[in-house]
């Protein structure tokens, strides 16, 4: 480039700078307004939208490894990756050992003895053992638990408060050598507290620990999945501290759910474990989330199958050992009337133990760095700044599009607006009918569309086709070409906006550990012209700008 050329470019940049700065500032103002409305939680309306958009992402892509990586079957001769298996106790399992609900301590002792053969990595008993039980039963349980511990299997017991182990401790059991069996040494107490979203009571959110506001982070009872995951890491204490540090008392992480069931469950599940939900369903106004999936996303071994091979003769001992190799067993109950159920986003109601199982799956999938909402992050404002940055980009694209559109269509008509010629054709058509007739007819049609959702898409498509046909018949050729250019520009801007949204959600998910809940908000801003409604703020800003400029100019002149 010659010196003259470089000088010319520099001059053009200098000349354009005020315009660029003004454009940047205006788009920033627009983005700030958008951010406010995205987070304007009037009567809690913003939260369901974010949660629903998060559910949609997992429903559509939850079985994709790039979104939710899950352990695959190990290669022959290789150690199995840590994974989660739910062991489900039900009435039939209890009956096999002559027991009845509630599952007695002695049954748990027997089940642990059976599970010992499988040598899992860890076992959680998702049962509250707080009722009085015979001392011999408690000692049996602690004896088996101590044996499992000695064999390298970590054991976890559900508690609701620190004193819940007192019943077991009071038994003062001794092992075979006469040494006291301390409950604390064989069982790690873990919290099984559940959190549900206020708006829909769905369990998407898993607490790091159970503590009240007076306790410092890390002082509460660590949640089951967090403790189990951290104990399997080289530095368990550091892991717990990292996850719970600087978090508010009710903080937790978001659970990624896969719509697909675990393949192991196909042996007992009534329905298919391969659930596919296409985004096209949402576009076609069909339910976008999977209906009742009869196949949970965690491998499930029924205790009655473990105790009695006749329940599933095809489940060989070898398959059992493969399943349990490197597994965390989460023992839970599925009893009629026990009400231990959790509402999940993609599998409707599941027995409560799945909540902890999926949480542990998440921790394993994301290497101990699960997705955490902005509300619980520190410094919180930094994450909202990220939102603002994304919206700033979208606002800049919007303003750029508006500016170009103004250049392409100097009359200022939107490419989606009906042309005066078409209006001139449509209005007389309706004017043939008396006003009450066409208003009542239009009202009736809209009422039908509101009532029957399938009609909505048909009606919208029919209306678009009709308007296009009318425009093609009555509008001038130059106007149609102009409109086409405007539409192409709109499409280009929309594609660019979508690329920004995808990139922003990916960066937020992958590197900032944010759940994918903001995309629907971004998308609605970019696609449905929310900006249009709020460009009034820009006009107001420009007016203020002019007043300021006038005042400054006046000040200089005086």
């Amino acid at each position, binding site marked *: 480039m010659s010196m003259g050329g470089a000088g010319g470019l520099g001059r053009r940049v200098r000349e354009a700078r005020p315009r660029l700065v003004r454009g940047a500032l205006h788009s920033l103002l627009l983005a700030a307004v958008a951010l406010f409305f995205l987070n304007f939680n009037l009567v809690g309306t913003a939260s369901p939208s974010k949660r629903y958009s998060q559910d949609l992402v997992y429903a559509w892509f939850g079985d994709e490894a790039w979104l939710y990586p899950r352990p695959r079957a190990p290669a022959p001769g290789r150690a199995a990756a840590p994974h989660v298996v739910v062991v489900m106790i039900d009435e039939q399992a209890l009956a096999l050992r002559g027991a009845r609900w509630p599952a007695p301590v002695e049954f748990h002792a027997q089940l642990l003895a059976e599970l010992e053969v499988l040598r899992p990595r860890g076992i959680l008993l998702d049962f509250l053992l707080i009722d009085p039980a015979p001392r*011999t039963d408690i000692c049996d349980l602690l004896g088996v638990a101590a044996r499992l511990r000695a064999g390298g299997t970590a054991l976890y017991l559900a508690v609701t408060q620190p004193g819940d182990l007192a019943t077991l401790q009071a038994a003062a059991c001794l092992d075979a050598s006469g040494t006291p069996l301390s409950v604390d040494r064989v069982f790690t107490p873990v919290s099984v507290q559940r959190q549900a979203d206020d708006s829909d009571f769905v369990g998407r959110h898993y607490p790091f620990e159970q503590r009240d506001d007076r306790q410092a982070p890390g002082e509460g009872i660590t949640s089951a999945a967090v403790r189990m995951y951290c104990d399997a890491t080289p530095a368990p204490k550091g892991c717990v501290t990292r996850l719970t540090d600087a978090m508010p008392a009710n903080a937790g992480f978001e659970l990624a759910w896969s719509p697909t069931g675990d393949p192991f469950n196909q*042996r007992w599940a009534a329905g298919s474990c391969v659930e596919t939900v296409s985004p096209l369903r949402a576009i076609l106004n069909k339910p976008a989330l999977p209906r*009742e999936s*009869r196949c949970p996303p965690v491998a499930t071994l029924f205790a009655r199958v473990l105790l*009695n091979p006749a329940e599933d*003769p095809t489940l060989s001992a070898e398959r059992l050992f493969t399943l349990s190799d490197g597994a965390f067993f989460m023992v839970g109950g*599925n009893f009629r009337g026990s009400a231990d159920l959790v509402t999940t986003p993609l599998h409707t109601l599941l027995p409560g133990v799945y909540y902890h199982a999926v949480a542990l799956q998440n921790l394993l999938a994301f290497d101990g760095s699960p997705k955490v909402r902005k509300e619980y992050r520190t410094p919180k404002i930094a994450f909202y700044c990220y939102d603002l940055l994304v919206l700033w980009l979208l606002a800049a694209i919007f303003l750029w599009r508006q500016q170009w559109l103004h250049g392409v269509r100097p009359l200022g008509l939107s490419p989606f607006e009906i042309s005066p010629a078409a209006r001139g054709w449509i209005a007389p058509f309706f004017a043939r009918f008396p006003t009450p007739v066409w208003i009542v007819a239009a009202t009736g049609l809209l009422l039908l569309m509101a009532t029957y959702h399938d009609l909505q898409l048909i009606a919208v498509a029919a209306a678009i086709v009709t308007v296009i046909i009318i425009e093609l018949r009555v509008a001038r050729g130059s106007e149609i070409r102009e409109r086409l250019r405007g539409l192409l520009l709109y499409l280009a801007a929309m594609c660019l906006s979508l690329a920004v949204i995808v990139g922003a959600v990916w960066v937020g998910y992958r590197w900032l550990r944010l759940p994918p809940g903001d995309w629907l908000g971004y998308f609605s801003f970019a696609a449905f012209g929310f900006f249009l409604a709020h460009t009034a703020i820009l006009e107001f800003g420009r007016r203020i700008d002019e007043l300021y400029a006038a005042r400054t100019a006046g000040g200089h002149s005086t």
Partner: protein
Amino acid sequence: MKTPLVVLLASVAGCLSGASADQPPSPSTGQNACRVPDNRVLGPRMSERPLPLLSGDAAHGFRPACTVPWSTLSPDKQSLPVVGCYQDNLLQLANDAACGPGTGRLWVSIRWVRTSGEQQRAQSTPTATCQRLETGTYAATRDFPATPCTPPGTAPDGDANAARPAATAAAPSLPTPGATATTPAAPSAATPRPER
């Protein structure tokens, strides 16, 4: 609209055990381990894993006693007689010393051991089979399911095979005593033809 999975799981349980979800729970009697006369424990299913033993009885409840390797129960690796049975899933052995004194006769879950009753049943269960004929077509016994024939020696898909009932899953590799009626399988586009 949202059926609780507890109901679904109960339905599945019903399907597996042959009972409806509304019936009171009852242990499965599918294997009938307790009705086999002179049943014997032949050995462990996985030799390297110790066996969990229980003490007690049906009246007073069972309790874990200890875990021992098979060699402790049967030092000479002989089969052991079953002296008692509970709910088709616990077998009582004559041994009352493997876990120390005072335990009484010990019990072991049928999950971890092979039994003679199980072996007899496998041999006596009428089994459907299929065979590839010289003509390239397939012949099968009348009970053979309408699924494609997997001749002996052909490795079927592991998971698909495992999901099928045991009687059909094991069908191709087992002999069929007394099976005379054959149902020729009509050749189709999917049926491989002999090379010429």
